[in-house]
């Protein structure tokens, strides 16, 4: 028997239910545990060692410590949820395709899945909206990602292109490549369209997009927060 994963309460407030046979474990974003059966043992761990943990915290804005959740004393169940409201998706990794994941979108993975920091080049670091470091996920197993809003999947055929606003990315397969470009041909119209810079993807592969933009949402909310008079 192997671990079972199920997304419960699908919609904008889902959670991930993980059933673990005795001895099995998964690792999750620090603080993601919502509830669990007593058989589960939670440990903080710095995956990738101190430097890996530091780079994760400093460069990718993720938690310093991952949780390792182990069904220690018998089979167990754990509920996991991310901080932002939005969808959770499960990706089955077969070891052939690896994923690049934007900061903060990682929720959980099997122990056989590896997460590494990957540095982007200067242009992408500055303008992609993903920062200089993104996560590269390799290996075989189950990967759970979270988004802000719903997740929209786009499959690209070989050499097919697709343009995504730079704050709406969740993950993409490593067989796709992307370039940063202005949304319109001129800078003025790029500015006035409200879509300053965009990522132009090229297939083959798959791109996962979130239907809401966290920083735009922040701006929208702040307009409604009463200021102290």
């Amino acid at each position, binding site marked *: 028997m192997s671990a079972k994963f199920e997304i419960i309460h699908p919609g904008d407030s889902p959670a991930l239910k993980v059933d673990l046979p005795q001895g099995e474990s998964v690792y999750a974003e620090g603080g993601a545990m919502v509830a669990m059966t007593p058989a589960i043992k939670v440990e903080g761990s710095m995956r990738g060692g101190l430097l890996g943990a530091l780079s994760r915290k400093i460069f990718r804005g993720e938690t310093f410590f991952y949780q390792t959740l182990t069904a220690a004393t018998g089979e167990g169940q754990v509920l996991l949820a991310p901080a932002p409201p939005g969808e959770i998706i499960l990706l089955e990794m*077969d070891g052939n395709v690896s994923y690049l994941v934007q900061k903060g979108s990682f929720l959980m993975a099997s122990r056989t899945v590896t997460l590494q920091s990957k540095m982007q080049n200067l242009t992408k670091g500055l303008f992609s909206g993903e920062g200089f470091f993104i996560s590269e996920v390799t290996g075989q197993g189950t990967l759970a990602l979270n988004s802000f809003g719903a997740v929209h999947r786009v499959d690209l*055929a070989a050499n097919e292109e697709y343009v995504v606003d730079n704050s709406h990315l969740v993950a993409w397969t490593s*067989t796709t*490549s992307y370039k940063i470009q202005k949304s319109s041909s001129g800078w003025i119209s790029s500015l006035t369209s409200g879509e300053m810079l965009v990522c132009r993807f090229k*297939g*083959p592969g798959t791109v996962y997009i979130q239907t809401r933009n966290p920083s735009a949402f922040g701006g929208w909310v702040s307009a409604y927060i009463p200021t102290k008079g």
Partner: protein
Amino acid sequence: MTDAILPYFKAVWFTPDGSGGGRAAKVTLTPEGLSIDTGEGYRVEWPLRGLKFGKAGEEESYLLVTCPIVPGPVGALTLTDQDFARILSSRVDPSYQTLLMGFSAANLGHVRRKWRNLVLAAILTAAAFGGGYWAVSHWVSDWAARKLPLETEKKWGDLLIRSQLVGKTEITEGPAYEAAQMILRRLKTGAPKDLPYAFTLHVVKDPMVNAFALPGGHMVLMTGLMKEAASPEEVAGVLAHEMSHVTKRHVVKRLVQSLGWRLWFSLFFGSGDLGEVAFGMGSLMEISYGRGQEEEADREGAKIMAQAGLPVTALGTFFDKLSKKDGTDKVPAFLSTHPASKNRSEAMKKLAEELKPHAPRSLGLDWAQVRAALKP
């Protein structure tokens, strides 16, 4: 078909419209072309002459293969296997040869870049830490040397002198020994009265022209230096200089500093071979003083000489002789840790005038006889 035993290459298969994303596929090379097990329960055959190649992925680390001459919608394959690219390069349209051969090389280059970046990052981190330490090390060693109790310094000196004398012959009697002790006694009369150090001079049988001081007041004088010196005053000059390294606590500062370096090196390289190298570097650093310290030792040494009724200039002349001999006088002063001899002699002459030394009193030694006693 016997394709079950044919070797295959791992690939990712994409449907013509990309739907479903990439799937694990197996590609077999057949005499006619590629036989693709799409992993979806069906097989696709692509003839060699129709294959088109390109690159895909973030770092162009995937080889993209399509076959547009096949009627109807065509899927695509991505592979990372360099052998696949190499084998195909000789079998397909020659116009793809560069791309296919380049693919294997580029992929290798990718691995090399990764390693190069890792090594660079390690060097930069070590340099940053090392540089940071270097920036504060003088301050730290000064502070530590001030805080170090005299008793500890003496204990270190006692330990170090034992290790320095291992395998060496220490001369404890005879004209050379007597002459050396007499020089030391005279120098002590010129040293500041409240010094907490009882200087001990060890005369060591060694052809090397050298003398050095250790923490706590131990000094080592090699017979090679006595043979090289034209007069006992020249030996006195060198010893006065070395005594000043002790009284000004340069010795202990250097020791603390080199211990600090060892600490950094062992932190970075562990206790492996490189750690050993660092250890060796540390020992080398123990005996080299900074330029400021050398100049200070010259000044203090000159004061001791003047107070003891010895010619101040003797301190300069011997160092001059040595630097002329080994050619270090050609090194510009600002590049060397030791003041260049020309500067040194001039500085000594100036000091001699400033210090208004007591009328020099002879050491009363038959130097020719002392040197003769050192002949083997």
